[in-house]
């Protein structure tokens, strides 16, 4: 049911290359092995080379390529990391939607994630938290946009600088 994420397409690609490297007539096993190894090394290095060829990202662009986009149990879930979020103490912040509606994710001190739908446990990744939220929605039930939201910047009792007086 999960579509289009993770190692499945990549695995398929590897399989194709290795099959193509199978020894045709007259080639020795050693030769074939060398070709296989070369293929593997080339595969490993390819992303590095590609990354080196790219210009460095502008520092004011706080969006990174870390993202997901899949259909899970009939729901379209998307997520993109928005780095350097001022509010998150433990690293980046994610913007996640389920069927186009925002799912507010929050961070636990151990680095795991929880959502407003499933608020009494946490998940190791934003994708797992998004899937966990889908698991707890009934058919046809949609997220309500709480903006400016319970976690909006506004309320006085959540500001980082809020002083507690004795």
């Amino acid at each position: 049911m999960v579509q289009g994420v993770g190692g499945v397409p990549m695995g398929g690609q590897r399989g194709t290359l290795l099959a193509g490297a199978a020894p045709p007539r007259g080639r020795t096993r050693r030769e074939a092995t060398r070709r296989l190894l070369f293929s593997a090394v080339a595969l490993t290095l390819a992303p590095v080379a590609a990354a080196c060829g790219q210009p460095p990202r502008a520092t004011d662009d706080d969006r990174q390529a870390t993202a997901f986009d899949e259909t899970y149990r009939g729901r379209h879930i998307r997520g993109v990391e928005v780095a350097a979020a001022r509010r998150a103490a433990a690293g980046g912040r994610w913007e996640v939607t389920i069927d186009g509606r925002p799912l507010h994710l929050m961070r636990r001190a151990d680095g795991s994630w929880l959502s407003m739908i499933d608020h009494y446990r946490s998940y190791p990744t934003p994708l797992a938290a998004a899937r966990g939220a889908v698991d707890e929605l009934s058919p046809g039930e949609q997220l309500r946009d709480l903006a400016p939201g319970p976690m909006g910047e506004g309320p006085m009792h959540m500001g980082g600088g809020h002083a507690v007086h004795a």
Partner: protein
Amino acid sequence: MPYTRKNVNRLTGTERRRFVGALLEVKRRGEYDEFVRMHIEYNTPDGEHGLRAAHMTPSFLPWHRKFLLELERALRRVDASVTVPYWDWTRDRTATSVPWLDDLLGGNGRRSDRQVMTGPFAYRAGHWKITEGVTDVRYLTRDLGHARSPIELPTGAELNQALADPVYDTAPWNSTVTYGFRNKLEGWGAGRGSVSWRNHNRVHRWVGGSMLGGASANDPVFWLHHAFVDLQWTRWRQQHRDPRYLPAEPPGVHDAQHRRIVARHERLPPWGVTPDELEDLSGIYRYE
């Protein structure tokens, strides 16, 4: 003269009727939804910036004690005989146990959409429309026992593991602490799967539906659950030699928890009372 909070399985028929009637009236007046909103607002977890008053924090217990007391006051303005009963989930453990009877909280949600169809809080009964939810459904939902991957309610032994800890809470005062009564009761564990949600958290998960989200107070069982959690704090204080709330002093400026938690004599938002003032409320209410 303090009033008494009873075990929900000991309420008489009249007491059940009056408790339910007071809840419906507080809802009709619009006061109930203010409590739901407040609980949503105080959801800051410990990986975010800001003061944590209600969850993943030492003041989890005093914050919810005051929250419950305020709801109870609203109920008693309607009917002075009413108190919030507690649900002992270590004993009343099934989807047909007392809290879920038709003349109390009603039963489980139906399979198709988890909508509660029985009892006074069913949408079709006409008195309990969800307006402060985190989704667009207007009806109360439950998934008792979490049908898709079933879980059990916490046992008495699991609760006793929390009660046996002689220290109220420990640094770093958040969801990662493995010692201390507070987090063992609140129930944030390490790792994945069922070990990572215990006692209080596990009960929210067992009830499911509305009770699982930030708007969990939409299900009136929230109050029965938190009355039982509150009773554990009272019991714990009776069982240990030094049962004071910790930390006694605020973390210093170089501490990562500086201004992020509420120390014993600091004021707890939104009410401005201190944990110290909430430790012993035996002059206001007692547990049966």
